[in-house]
């Protein structure tokens, strides 16, 4: 069973990289760009038939390693 995981900085945490990328795109003429934040993307394939169990496993992976919960949030979606 495949899942995607997106890890982004929490809303109130400073995102220096996102800020610089946003400014650069705006300077390049993308005037309608309002906000941009960056993150990480993972695809996780898991040997498990029960969707709930599988998702719990991915959730655990996120909490234990993929995301730094002090500054990051994560989102899991089934692929």
């Amino acid at each position: 069973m495949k899942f995607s995981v997106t890890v982004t900085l929490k809303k109130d945490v400073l995102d220096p990289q996102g800020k610089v990328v946003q400014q650069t795109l705006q300077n390049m003429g993308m005037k309608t760009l309002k906000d941009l934040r960056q993150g990480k993307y993972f695809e996780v394939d898991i040997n498990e038939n029960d969707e709930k169990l599988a998702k719990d496993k991915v959730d655990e992976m996120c909490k234990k390693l993929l995301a730094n919960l002090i500054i990051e949030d994560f989102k899991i979606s089934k692929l």
Partner: protein
Amino acid sequence: MNSSVIVFPGSNCDRDIAVALEKMQFKNKLVWHKDTNLPKSDLIVIPGGFSYGDYLRSGAIAAKSKIINEVIKAANEGCLVLGVCNGFQILIETGLLKGALLRNKNLKFINKDVSLKVNSINNKFCKKYKLGQIIKLNIAHNEGNYFTNKDHLKELEDNNLIAFKYCDEKGFINQNSNPNGSVNNIAGIFNKNKNILGMMPHPERMIEKSVSGDDGISLFSSLLN
């Protein structure tokens, strides 16, 4: 010789290389990235550092700055261009040099003195070195692991377009003497016309024997005439 050092926000070896150029009697100017006019130069240097904090990809954002169009134009007209460390990364992002600089194989920043073998001397940058000479320069980077496709690698090897290769103190080129995982131990490459050199090691850090060593001097003196 007139030289211009391009300064981006986050460049931090601009002063170091300016000092080296002035010491070698270049008439040097620091050029701010927002400038659209490049002073008349025989040599353009893109210095090391962390332009735009290395955010997104090292060199990616600097490669979109205003002044870089002028650098590309000058390079295509044959002007000499030297990119050191982050400068090399920027040259890759502009497409003036081919390939990619990946994260070091140990996934860590590496700062140390390394031995290099001079691999090509029939060019304006290295002619004061001897072919096969072993020199000591300093590296300091996170993304210096050079990678390119097979065809391009063959082109580099066949046409003498590799300037320096990482080696050990005795000159052996192998995985043990490869600090960052670069393909074929490549530390610096030229474009086809050999007027552009991109290299990860810092020649400007080796211009004084009493401080750190002076193996970088020959690179600057090669460029002088």
